[in-house]
C-alpha cells in the first residue's frame, strides 16, 4: 500500500509503524504521523502542487515552514473547507483531503499557461494601467481575470465549528520554541516567573528537531526531550504548541491563535477548532528564528528549486529526499550544512555552486571530504526542464556581480537547493515598535532600539549558531524574569559544540541574465512579481519602497513576502543606486500569518454577536407575531399585523384605535434616569433649555437638551417626585448618550455638586395607554390612585397600585390623545400588560407599535429626535424657542448665539400634498419649482411623512428655509423620480385632545 518512493529508509521524527491515508487532487497517497502535507507529498514524489497566481506557471514546494509561498491548498470539504492553507504547515491526519489551487482547469493541463505568452499584456501595475478604459470595462475584465487567477474558493455554508477566546496574563511570554526559546523558557521558569512558551508547530523544538549537534553531551533530540520534560514539570510554565503569535500590540499585548484541532478530521465535541489568546505579558522574549532567502535567477520558480534549509529539514526531520540528484546554489557557508545533510542521507550531490571566490573554511573542507565538487565564484543562470528541474547551468560571476561570463557548465540534477542568506524573523519585533537596523556585513535586518519590554534572542538577532542561540536565550529569559522581580544567579546556559568556522556571506541579490537564458527571475513567488517588474517600477519613477510594494504587489500575498521582501528591497536599492538602509522597509503589520475570521469572532456570532435587550413584555410581542424594528439594542414592535393584514392596514387600525378607543404601547425602552440630591434642580437647569426650580412636586415638564454648539440632541419628560428627587426620561436610542452627558459634567466640571444619577431604564417596565377610554380603563385597575383632574392633572405623576402592582403613573403621552404611562417593576411588566389587555377588552384595547406611535405624534406635530433633528437643528428651528430661558445660562445657550446661526435657517413646517393619497418619501428634497431642471437649490427636506387614517390623508413634516414665513406657499418634493406638489402648512395637523393639553 504505502509506496513512498522518496521516503528514506531510516531517520526522521515520523512514526513509520503507522500509515496515514490522504487524498490530494483526488489521488490517494500514504504518509506517516509526524508528516506535514508537504513532506508526505514529497515522499510520494509529488512536486507540482499548484499554479502561480498570474502566469499559471507550475509551482512546487519551496520551503518547509511558515514562509511557503507556493504550496497553498484548499483543505477539507464542504463547510469545513479552508482555502490558502500552507501545505508545509498542515499536519497530516488519516483521511485528509486537499486540492491544489489556481489550476483551472486542471493541475497538469493548464489552459492558463497561456499566461506565460500573455505576460506582455500583464505588466507591472496592470491593475492600474491596462483595464482602466473604457469606463466600466474593468468589471468585465475583472471577472475573467479572477477566474483565471483567483486565490482559492471560500467554502459554502456556515462554519460548523466552535471557536474560543482566552484572556491571559504572564510574566514572560517566549515566542518560538527553538533552541533560544527553550533556553529562555528554562531560564525564566527556573527563576520562578510565570512563563508562556508558544510555537507555531505541533512539535516544540524548532531547529532542534532537525539538528545534528550535541548539547550538554547529548543528542539535540534527547536534550530537547529532557528540556521539555523539565518545563512541563514547572507549574507556572504553560506550553502552547500549534500556537502562532500573530500580532504584537501596545503595552505588551499580543494576539496568539492556537490551532486546537486543525490536525483532526473534525474537532471533538469538547474542543474548539481554534482558540484566540489575548495575552498581556510583562516581558516578551522573541526567539522567532530566521527565514532563509531564495536567490533570484532565471526560472527560479521551477518545481524542484527549493530553499536549502528546507531540503535538509525534509531529509532529517521527515526522512524524505526532495530529489535524487542535487545542486546547491549559495552565497553563504551555513547552507553547506544542508548539502552535507542531504549527501549523508544518500542524495547524490552534483555540485555546490558558490557565488563567493575561493571559499576556505570548515564547511568547504567538510564538503570536500565528501567529494562534493565546488564551483566557486559562479552562479546558476538557467534551469532546464518545463514542469520540473532537469538540470541547471552555471556561469562565472563578474566581480561586481553585474554580469556573468564564460561558458555555461551544465549540471545534472532534479533538485536545486538555494540559499541567499538569512533574514531574522522580526515581524513581531517591528510590530512592537522596535526599530530594525540594516547590517551590511550579514546582509540582513537586525533588531535595533526597542520600544516595549521585549528581548530578542538567537537567529532572530542574527545568531545562526546553535551554541550562541542557547547562550542568548538563557540570558534573555533570565533578564526578562529579573525585570519581573525574579532575581537570582544567572543560570548556566546549555553547552553546544561549536559550529564549524564559516566565511562571511557575499550579498547576491540578483543573478545577471546570460545570453542563453533570459527567463523570468521571480522575487515574489506568490504574487508572480519578477525582478523585471521591480526594475520597470523604478524606471517609471517609483522611489519609496511602500509605493513599489503597492504598485508591483510584491509582498502583498497571503505570505506577506516572507521570502521575497528583503530581496525586493535590495533589488530596488540596487536599481536606484541607493543604500538599502536608507530605503527603509515596508511596514510589518499583524497578522504574521493569516488568522481565520472565525477565530477572531469566537463565540460572538449569531445571537451572541450583539446582545438584544428585552422588555418585560417582549415574549408577548413575539408570540403575537409583531414585526420588530431595532432601536439601539432593543427590538421594538413596529406593528402587530393580524392574519392577512398588510403593514399599512395594521398601522391604520392601530392609529384609529388610539383616536377612537384606547391603545397600549410597550414604552419600557424609554431611557429613565433617577436623579437625587439637593443640586438636582441645578443640574436640570443646566442640561435642559428651560427652567426647573419652580416645578411642583408631582408634576412633569418637557425639556430639550442641547450640546454646546446649540444643537438639539435629545428630549424627554422629567418629573419631580420629591424636593430633591427627579425621574428623567430620554429617547429610547439616546439613553446612554444622555447618561454619559450628565456624568461627564458632574465628574469633570461640577465636582462638588450634591447629586447622583442612576440609570433605571431596565428597572421599570412601562405600558402607555392612550385614547379616549384610557382613563376609564385605568380606573378599572387602579387602587389608591385618584385619577381626578385635580389629583392627577395632565403632566402630573402619582403613585399607587395598578392591577395590584405597585405603580408610578404619569399622565403624559406622545400621541396627543389622553394617555397614561404606567411604570411598574420590570418583573411585573408582563402581568401589567396582560391585565391591561384583559380589562381593556371591553373598550376595544389595541396594542400598537412604533409606526402607529410615529403617525400619531406627527398628527399633533410632536418632534422625534432623529427625524426632525439630525445634529444641525436648534430649538428655534423646531419652533420651540419659547422653551429656552433667557434669564440663565444653560448648556448650548452660547452656541445658539454663534454667527453661523444668524443666517436664514430651515424651520419646521407641515406639508400637505395636492393629492391627499400621495405619501412623500422621508428625506425627499423640497424645491420651489415644478420641474426638474438642474441646478435646483434645495429649500429643505421632508423629516417625517405618514398616511393619517384619522385625517384620511397624508401628512408630512419638513425643515424648510424660512418655512414659518412661507405658510401657504406651494413647493415640490422629489418623489419616485418625479415631483409631488404640496403646500406649506403649520407643523400640526390635529389639536391634541382636551385632556392632553
Amino acid at each position, binding site marked *: 500500500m504505502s509506496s513512498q518512493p522518496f521516503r528514506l529508509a531510516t531517520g526522521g521524527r515520523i512514526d513509520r509503524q503507522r500509515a496515514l491515508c490522504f487524498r490530494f487532487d483526488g489521488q490517494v497517497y500514504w504518509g506517516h504521523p509526524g508528516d506535514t502535507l508537504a513532506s508526505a507529498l514529497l515522499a510520494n514524489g509529488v512536486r507540482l502542487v499548484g499554479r502561480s497566481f498570474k502566469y499559471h506557471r507550475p509551482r512546487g514546494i519551496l520551503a518547509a515552514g511558515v514562509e511557503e509561498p507556493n504550496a497553498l491548498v484548499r483543505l477539507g470539504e464542504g463547510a469545513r473547507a479552508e482555502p490558502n492553507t500552507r501545505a508545509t504547515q498542515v499536519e497530516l491526519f488519516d483521511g485528509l483531503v486537499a486540492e491544489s489551487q489556481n489550476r483551472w482547469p486542471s493541475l497538469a493541463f493548464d489552459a492558463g499557461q497561456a499566461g506565460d505568452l500573455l505576460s506582455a499584456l500583464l505588466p507591472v501595475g496592470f491593475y492600474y494601467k491596462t483595464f482602466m478604459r473604457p469606463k466600466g470595462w474593468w468589471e468585465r475584465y475583472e471577472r475573467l481575470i479572477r477566474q483565471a487567477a483567483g486565490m482559492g474558493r471560500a467554502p459554502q455554508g456556515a462554519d460548523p465549528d466552535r471557536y474560543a477566546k482566552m484572556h491571559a496574563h504572564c510574566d514572560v511570554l517566549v515566542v518560538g520554541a527553538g533552541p533560544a526559546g527553550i533556553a529562555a523558557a528554562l531560564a525564566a521558569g527556573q527563576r520562578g516567573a510565570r512563563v508562556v512558551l508558544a510555537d507555531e508547530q505541533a512539535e516544540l523544538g524548532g531547529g532542534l528537531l532537525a539538528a545534528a549537534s550535541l548539547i550538554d553531551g547529548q543528542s539535540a533530540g534527547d536534550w530537547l526531550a529532557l528540556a521539555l520534560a523539565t518545563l512541563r514539570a514547572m507549574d507556572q510554565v504553560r506550553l502552547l504548541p500549534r500556537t502562532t503569535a500573530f500580532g504584537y500590540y501596545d503595552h505588551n*499585548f499580543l494576539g496568539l491563535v492556537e490551532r486546537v484541532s486543525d490536525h483532526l478530521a473534525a474537532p471533538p465535541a469538547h474542543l474548539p477548532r481554534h482558540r484566540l489568546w489575548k495575552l498581556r505579558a510583562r516581558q516578551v522574549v522573541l526567539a522567532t528564528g530566521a527565514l532563509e532567502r531564495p536567490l533570484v535567477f532565471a526560472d527560479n520558480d521551477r518545481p524542484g528549486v527549493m530553499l536549502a534549509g528546507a531540503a535538509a529539514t525534509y531529509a532529517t526531520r521527515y526522512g524524505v529526499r526532495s530529489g535524487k540528484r542535487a545542486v546547491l546554489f549559495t552565497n553563504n557557508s551555513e547552507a553547506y550544512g544542508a548539502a552535507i545533510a542531504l549527501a549523508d542521507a544518500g542524495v547524490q550531490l552534483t555540485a555546490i555552486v558558490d557565488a563567493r571566490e575561493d571559499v576556505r573554511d570548515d564547511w568547504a573542507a567538510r564538503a570536500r571530504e565528501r567529494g562534493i565538487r565546488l564551483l566557486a565564484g559562479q552562479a546558476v543562470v538557467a534551469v532546464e526542464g518545463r514542469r520540473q528541474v532537469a538540470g541547471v547551468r552555471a556561469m562565472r560571476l563578474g566581480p561586481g556581480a553585474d554580469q556573468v561570463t564564460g561558458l555555461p557548465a551544465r549540471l545534472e540534477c532534479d533538485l536545486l537547493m538555494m540559499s541567499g542568506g538569512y533574514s531574522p524573523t522580526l515581524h513581531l519585533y517591528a510590530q512592537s*515598535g522596535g526599530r530594525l537596523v540594516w547590517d551590511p556585513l550579514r546582509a540582513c535586518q537586525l533588531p535595533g532600539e526597542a*520600544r516595549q519590554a521585549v528581548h530578542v534572542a538567537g537567529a532572530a538577532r542574527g545568531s545562526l549558531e546553535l551554541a550562541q542561540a542557547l547562550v542568548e536565550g538563557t540570558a534573555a529569559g533570565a533578564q526578562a524574569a529579573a525585570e519581573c522581580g525574579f532575581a537570582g544567579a544567572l543560570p548556566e546556559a546549555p553547552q553546544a559544540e561549536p559550529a564549524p568556522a564559516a566565511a562571511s556571506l557575499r550579498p547576491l541579490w540578483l543573478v545577471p541574465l546570460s545570453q542563453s537564458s533570459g527567463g523570468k527571475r521571480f522575487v515574489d513567488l506568490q504574487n508572480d512579481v519578477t525582478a523585471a517588474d521591480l526594475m520597470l517600477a523604478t524606471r517609471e519613477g517609483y522611489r519609496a519602497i511602500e509605493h513599489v510594494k503597492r504598485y508591483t504587489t510584491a509582498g502583498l500575498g497571503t505570505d506577506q513576502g516572507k521570502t521575497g521582501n528583503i530581496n525586493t528591497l535590495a533589488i530596488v536599492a540596487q536599481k536606484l543606486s541607493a543604500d538599502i538602509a536608507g530605503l527603509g522597509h515596508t511596514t510589518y503589520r499583524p497578522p504574521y500569518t493569516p488568522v481565520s475570521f472565525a477565530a477572531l469572532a469566537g463565540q460572538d456570532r449569531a445571537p451572541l454577536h450583539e446582545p438584544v435587550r428585552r422588555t418585560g413584555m417582549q415574549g408577548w410581542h413575539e408570540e403575537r407575531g409583531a414585526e420588530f424594528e431595532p432601536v439601539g439594542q432593543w427590538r421594538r414592535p413596529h406593528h402587530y399585523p393580524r392574519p392577512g393584514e398588510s403593514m399599512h392596514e395594521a398601522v391604520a387600525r392601530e392609529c384609529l384605535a388610539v383616536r377612537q378607543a384606547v391603545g397600549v404601547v410597550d414604552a419600557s425602552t424609554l431611557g429613565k434616569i433617577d436623579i437625587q440630591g439637593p443640586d438636582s434642580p441645578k443640574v436640570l437647569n443646566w442640561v435642559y433649555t428651560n427652567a426647573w426650580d419652580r416645578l411642583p412636586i408631582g408634576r412633569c415638564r418637557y425639556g430639550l437638551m442641547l450640546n*454646546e454648539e446649540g444643537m438639539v440632541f435629545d428630549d424627554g419628560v422629567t418629573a419631580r417626585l420629591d424636593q430633591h428627587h427627579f425621574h428623567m426620561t430620554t429617547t429610547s436610542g439616546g439613553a446612554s448618550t444622555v447618561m454619559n452627558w450628565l456624568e461627564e459634567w458632574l465628574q469633570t466640571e461640577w*465636582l462638588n455638586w450634591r447629586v447622583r444619577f442612576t440609570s433605571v431604564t431596565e428597572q421599570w417596565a412601562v405600558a402607555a395607554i392612550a385614547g379616549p377610554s384610557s382613563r376609564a380603563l385605568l380606573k378599572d385597575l387602579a387602587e389608591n390612585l385618584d385619577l381626578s383632574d385635580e389629583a392627577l392633572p395632565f403632566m402630573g405623576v402619582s403613585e399607587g397600585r395598578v392591577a395590584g402592582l405597585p405603580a408610578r403613573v404619569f399622565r403624559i403621552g406622545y400621541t396627543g390623545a389622553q394617555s397614561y404611562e404606567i411604570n411598574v417593576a420590570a418583573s411585573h411588566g408582563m402581568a401589567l400588560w396582560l391585565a391591561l389587555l384583559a380589562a381593556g377588552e371591553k373598550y376595544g384595547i389595541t396594542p400598537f407599535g412604533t409606526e402607529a406611535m410615529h403617525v400619531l405624534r406627527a398628527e399633533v406635530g410632536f418632534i422625534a429626535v432623529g427625524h426632525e433633528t439630525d445634529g444641525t437643528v436648534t430649538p428655534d428651528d423646531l419652533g420651540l424657542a419659547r422653551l429656552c430661558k433667557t434669564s440663565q445660562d444653560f448648556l448650548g445657550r*452660547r452656541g445658539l*448665539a454663534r*454667527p453661523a446661526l444668524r443666517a436664514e435657517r430651515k424651520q419646521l413646517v407641515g406639508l400637505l400634498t395636492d393629492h391627499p393619497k400621495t405619501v412623500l418619501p422621508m428625506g425627499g428634497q423640497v424645491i420651489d419649482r415644478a420641474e426638474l431642471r438642474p441646478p435646483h437649490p434645495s429649500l429643505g427636506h421632508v423629516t417625517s411623512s405618514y398616511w393619517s387614517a384619522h385625517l384620511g390623508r397624508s401628512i408630512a413634516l419638513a425643515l424648510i428655509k424660512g418655512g414659518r414665513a412661507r405658510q401657504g406657499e406651494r413647493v415640490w418634493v422629489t418623489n419616485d423620480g418625479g415631483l409631488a406638489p404640496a403646500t406649506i402648512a403649520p407643523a400640526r395637523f390635529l389639536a391634541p385632545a382636551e385632556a392632553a393639553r
Partner: protein
Amino acid sequence: MLLLHCPYCGPRWEQEFQCRGEAHIARPEPAAEASDATWAAYLYLRSNPKGLHYERWQHTHGCRRWFNVLRSTLTHEIVAIYRPGEPKPELKR
C-alpha cells in the same frame, strides 16, 4: 491594546474604557460674554500633538468614572494618570 490604570479600579485593558478627548479645555465663563472666537476655540480647537497629550478617559465598562491621562500619541507611553480636579502634571522635557 493599552493597559490603563483606572485610579479607582486598578489596571484594566483598553476595551473597558473610552477616550473622551483632550483634557483641560475650560468652558469660558460667563459664556454669554465669550467672544465668537473664544467660543469657537472652546468648541473646536484641539492641540492634536505628536507626542504627549493630556486627555480624558472614562472607565465606561467599569466604575464609569472619568479621569485624566497624560499619554504619548507617538509611543502610547502613559506618563501620568490623575483625577479630575487634581493639578495637571508638568511636562519634563
